[in-house]
């Protein structure tokens, strides 16, 4: 879409599964992956006479999420019935919120841009259809599970920005401990509205809704496809039809599902079984206070208080578990001010590299943060060199043993003894008269090869900065 005369407008509707113990309107367990129809009761299968009772934990988590997204919480919100017939919907209506949602007017910052969130509302999930050759079965385990729907303003201007928004949203909600936000498991689902309009025009074009995108990449690809499709229609002088389109991952394209005329009339009306949801200010404040530190605040702290670079801070804050790992390692640093940079780079490069290769995340990581802190401490106080640290790290990773123990056992300790280093340095100077002369004539660059000589002689165990210092000392005496 570069050099196009059109600009893209995207709005995202994201459904997120809350990780409460029980379902939204009954007390069935809210779990993923159990045998079909084992987590059901008269209420969540829509038996006659059953009534919904909103669970406090669901409300609490929904409020947490909304606060984490900088929303205003409505003290008074309404559950409504959204009506349509579908076999995965036991009552043939979904209890949702429509006119008065739980929360409104939030925002998140994604890629340096503030994107407005229009609303966050609560609703119950439907069951799951299992299609077989000749029949369709329904599993109601998920039916009635608590969801929040997060609706962005139509302010996203490109498919990559949409993906960026989703990543940020996911990061915040995982930080707030309200959801796993796993798109593959379906605990995070995204529908998108996209329209094009002329760059100079402020009137939005006709939009299409895109569904069935199962990863951030799919969202980005589907939206990019949809933008190109709309653009070529417009360039041909054709109109965009307002419709819902499904993304086909295999064919890499969207296909029409239903037009506006075929759209459901959901016949929303306030659910008479549920009084208005009153969220008292004290309840909201209590939740606000118990919210964990969110990525933006954490990043700021890392930069301002700990002195990390913005890039390093953002890498460390990507996941809450990673940040927690970093922080507990940081606590164990002997020289925090000098060691932090090293610690950060060890986590971001060595550790993450290993984790990615092994397919591990911070939760499943067996190696404790104290090992890494210890390793950095050993480097900091000159016990081992950076190169040795890498070898030791390999051993920590495979054997899950403390670095000090490994150093001790393998005799890997760096040569820091002044005498030994001095001896090695003198040897280097004696055996390399040419380099020595060059240095003494003012070409101080030759110190490098001299250090290299010492390192080689010591089989890498000499402390390079000490070697450097000592060489200069001896040579300067000769000047």
């Amino acid at each position, binding site marked *: 879409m570069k050099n196009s005369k059109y600009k893209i407008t995207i709005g995202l509707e994201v459904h997120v599964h809350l990780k409460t113990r029980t379902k939204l309107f009954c007390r069935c367990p809210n779990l993923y992956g159990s045998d079909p129809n084992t987590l059901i009761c*008269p209420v969540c*299968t*829509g*038996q*006659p*006479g*059953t*009534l*919904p*009772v*909103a669970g406090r934990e669901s409300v609490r988590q929904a409020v947490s999420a909304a606060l984490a997204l900088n929303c205003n919480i409505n003290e008074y919100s309404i559950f409504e*019935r959204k*009506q349509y*017939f*579908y*076999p995965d919907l*036991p*009552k*043939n*209506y979904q209890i949702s919120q429509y006119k008065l949602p739980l929360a409104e007017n939030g925002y998140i910052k994604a890629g340096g841009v503030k994107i407005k969130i229009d609303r966050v509302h609560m609703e119950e999930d439907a069951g799951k259809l299992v299609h077989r050759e000749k029949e369709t079965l*329904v599993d109601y385990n998920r039916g009635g599970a608590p969801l929040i729907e997060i609706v962005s303003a139509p302010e996203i201007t490109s498919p990559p920005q949409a993906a960026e928004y989703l990543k940020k949203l996911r990061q915040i909600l995982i930080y707030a401990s309200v959801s796993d936000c796993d798109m593959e498991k379906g605990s995070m689902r995204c529908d998108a509205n996209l329209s094009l309009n002329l760059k100079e025009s402020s009137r939005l074009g006709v939009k299409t809704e895109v569904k069935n995108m199962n990863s951030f990449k799919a969202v980005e690809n589907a939206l990019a496809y949809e933008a190109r499709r709309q653009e070529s229609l417009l360039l041909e002088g054709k109109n965009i039809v307002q419709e819902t389109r499904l993304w086909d991952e295999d064919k890499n394209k969207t296909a029409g599902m239903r037009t506006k005329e075929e759209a459901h*009339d959901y*016949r*929303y*009306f306030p659910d*008479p*079984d*549920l*009084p208005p949801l009153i969220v008292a200010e004290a309840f909201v404040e209590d939740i606000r206070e118990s919210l964990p530190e969110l990525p933006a605040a954490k990043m700021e702290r890392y930069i301002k208080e700990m002195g990390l670079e913005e890039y390093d801070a953002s890498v460390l804050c990507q996941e809450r578990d990673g940040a927690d790992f970093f922080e507990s390692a940081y606590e164990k640093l002997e020289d925090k001010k000098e060691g932090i940079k090293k610690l950060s780079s060890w986590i971001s490069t060595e550790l993450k590299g290993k984790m990615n290769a092994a397919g591990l995340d911070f939760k499943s990581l067996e190696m404790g943060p104290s090992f890494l802190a210890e390793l950095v401490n050993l480097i900091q106080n000159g016990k081992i060199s950076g190169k040795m640290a890498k070898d030791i790290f390999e051993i920590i990773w495979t054997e899950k043993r403390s670095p000090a123990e490994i150093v001790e056992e393998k005799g890997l300790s760096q040569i820091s003894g002044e005498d030994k280093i001095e001896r090695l340095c003198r040897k280097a100077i004696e055996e390399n008269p040419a380099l020595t002369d060059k240095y003494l004539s003012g070409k101080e660059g030759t110190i490098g090869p001299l250090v290299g000589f010492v390192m080689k002689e010591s089989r890498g165990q000499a402390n390079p900065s000490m070697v450097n210092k000592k060489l200069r000392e001896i040579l300067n005496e000769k000047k």
Partner: protein
Amino acid sequence: MSRIISLRKAILSGSKNASSVVKESLEKVSKDSNLNCWINIYGKEALEKASEIDEKIKKGEDPGRLCGIPVAVKDNMLVRGMKTTNASRMLNEYISPYTATAVEKMQAAGAIIIGKTNMDEFAMGSSGETSAFGATRNPIDTARSPGGSSSGSAACVSADHVPAALGSDTGGSIRQPAAFCGIVGMKPTYGIVSRYGISPFSSSLDQVGPIASTVLDAAIILEIIAGYDRRDSTSIKKEVPGYAETINDSIQGVKIGIPAEYMQDGTDPPVRDSVLAASELLEKMGAKIKEVSLPLTKYAVSVYYIIAPAEASANLARLDGIRYGLSADSGKDFISDVTASRTEAFGIEVKRRIMLGTYVLSSGYYEDYYIKAQKARTLIKNEFMEVFKDVDLIFAPTSPTTAFKLGEKTGDILKMYLSDVFTISANLAGIPALNLPVGRDSKNLPVGAQFMGNYLSEKLIFRTAHALEKELSSSEKQ
């Protein structure tokens, strides 16, 4: 003045036992099968329960306040293991997977459920004639309707099969049949009896209540079934006061209003006469009678026929034949199967109301109908509140007529709907109202009058109705 208390005494004293009481009741039920009061009778289970009660009494255990009392339950209330058909082909084979809170409380008090009673299909009707299992007959005149929708519950109490029954009242479905059958029926304040386990017709209007042969019995039953239930979010968190203990207190000085609009040409003269005569008795007993005005009552039927069908259209949507209920196979897709099942299973009145409700909630009509009706509902509520600043209770006919003939109104829907004109507004406002038989017309058909009170004024209603009931029976004897 209490069948329940005297039966209980007889059972506890040993002059009767629960088993014989239940057997007697079952005999009456089978003798009166022509009345068609019952949809499913659970005689064997009832007798088993009765012998359990007898056993308890023998052992000296507390058998409960309703020990061994046979009762009836309207067939829209779930009782675990029993069918709950709602008088519909849709749920003809539906076996309840759990028990409604109100029923559970009755059972816990030792009541014995004889069976489930006939009703208008899904409680939609005023005559009992929309039942898929045929109309219930009025025991007082079997050519006539017992009223509806709690037709069987009213008829079986009136025919003395059981001393008490549970009904539900959405627009008069307890009070109007009680009036037609000459017994007592109470629709309590919305929210004091749990709706958990009551197949919903119109959730914001439905309320469970007692049908009994005397005011005291109705008070006893309500005391048992009322109370906060965390399974019903619309349930009121308040303790149930003892209704029975103050029922004999004086009604001296109680201010009672007679609404002029209920006593005009639309109301049959014999009904008006009986209500007026009863009001004179009330005055004689020390109550202060005055005329009041409820001009908005005339809009109640219109408001009701928007709100109730709207809620019903959503409440009945779950009946699609997929998980339970009658399931027709169209041989085509999901929607065709659902359409086929619902077409076959629902009667005409249910279909009419589903369509009406779907229409008023549709985009483009919602604001004009549903929202407007909600606003009018608030006005009707406010009007009652204004009147209750002036009087303690309202006393008025329950229905403009006495029991009409079966078939008389089935051809004229509007006429049928208008038979609820005096009962609907109490549901819209959520206030309590009790029907008391106050006389007979020239055909010896019972005339019912209702006491309506402010929210949670059940105690005053029971006391006043009890006083009038006593006075009426003593003046009858003279």
